[in-house]
C-alpha cells in the first residue's frame, strides 16, 4: 500500500495531505488525552511496527505485508491510528525506501484512516448483527486490510486513469493485482490478530467492549 515518491502528482499529494490533516490533528489530541492508555498504545504501535516489517510470500509470484492496524483499532480506537501510522510510514519512507515523503499524506490516509475506520465500523456492525466476537474481529481485520489496499488503488487510479475506461478501469486493474496478493495475507493477519487479542482479553489485563462474553466462553 506504499505509494512511492513520484507516482502521484504534487497536487494529489497536497490534496491527500489536506484530507489526512484533520484526522492527524484529532489523533494527536486523542493521544494527549489518552495518557492512561499509553501502554495499550505502545502495544498497538509495537504490533504495527512489527507486522508492517514482515514481507510475506504470497500467491501469483508476489509478496506483501500485513497492515497491522486492527489491534490498535480495537484496543485504542480508530481515531488514534493516523498518528501511529504516520510514525511508521515516516520511518519506512526515510529508512526503508517504502513510500515517500511527498506521498506521506496519501499513505497515511490509506493505512491510518481507511483501514482502521473500515475495521472498526465493520467490527461494530458485525457485533450488532449478532456475529460472534471471534468471527466479527476476523472479518473486520481481513476486510480492513483489503480496504487499505483498495484505498491505495483508488489513489493511484485518480492519478493515472485508464485512457479508455477512466478511473474505474484503472482502479479495477490496480485492485486486481493487490487483491490476489493480499487475500491470503489478510486471512493470516485476521487469525493472528484474533489470537493476540484473545490472549490479552483472557489474561484479564485488557478489557474490550463486547469481548467479555467471548472471554468467558
Amino acid at each position, binding site marked *: 500500500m506504499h505509494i*512511492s515518491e513520484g507516482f502521484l502528482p504534487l497536487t494529489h499529494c497536497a490534496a491527500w495531505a489536506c484530507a489526512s490533516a484533520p484526522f492527524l490533528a484529532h489523533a494527536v489530541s486523542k493521544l494527549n488525552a489518552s495518557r492512561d492508555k*499509553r*501502554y495499550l498504545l*505502545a502495544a498497538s504501535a*509495537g504490533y*504495527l511496527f512489527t507486522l508492517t*516489517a514482515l514481507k510475506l510470500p504470497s500467491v501469483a509470484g508476489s509478496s506483501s505485508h500485513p497492515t497491522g492496524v486492527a489491534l490498535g483499532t480495537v484496543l485504542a480506537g480508530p481515531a488514534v491510528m493516523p498518528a501511529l501510522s504516520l510514525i511508521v510510514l515516516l520511518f519506512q519512507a526515510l529508512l526503508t525506501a517504502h513510500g515517500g515523503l511527498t506521498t506521506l499524506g496519501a499513505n497515511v490516509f490509506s493505512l491510518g484512516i481507511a483501514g482502521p475506520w473500515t475495521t472498526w465500523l465493520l467490527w461494530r456492525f458485525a457485533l450488532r448483527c449478532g456475529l460472534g466476537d471471534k468471527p466479527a474481529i476476523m472479518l473486520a481485520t481481513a476486510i480492513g486490510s483489503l480496504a487499505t489496499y483498495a484505498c491505495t488503488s483508488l489513489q493511484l487510479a485518480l492519478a493515472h486513469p485508464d485512457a479508455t475506461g477512466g478511473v474505474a478501469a484503472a482502479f479495477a486493474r490496480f485492485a486486481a493485482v493487490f487483491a490476489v496478493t493480499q487475500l491470503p495475507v489478510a486471512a493470516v493477519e485476521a487469525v493472528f490478530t484474533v489470537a493476540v487479542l484473545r490472549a490479552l482479553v483472557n489474561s484479564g489485563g485488557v478489557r474490550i467492549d463486547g469481548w467479555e462474553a467471548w472471554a468467558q466462553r
Partner: protein
Amino acid sequence: MGGMGTTMRNLILLMAFSAALGVAAWSLASATGRVDADERVSAMLPPPSRPALWDPSEHLQALSFGGQAAIGVALLAFAWKGLRRRAS
C-alpha cells in the same frame, strides 16, 4: 497480574519469533523471485515524475527492516513492563 505478565512476555516472544520469521519469509520471497505487490503495481504506472527526495542505500534498507521489527518488540516490552507495574 501473573497472568497478564506471562501473556505480555509470551506476546513479546511471539513478536520476536515473528520478526525472525519475517526475515526468513522475506528471504524466501526474494529467493523464489516473488515481486513486492507495491513494486508490481508501480511497474504498471508511468515512470516517476520526480526523483526520490531521499533514497537510502540497500544496506541501510536491510538494516532498517530489522530495526523496525526491533522497535516493535521494544515497544511491546515497554507495554508489558508498564501494564505489569500498573496492575501491581
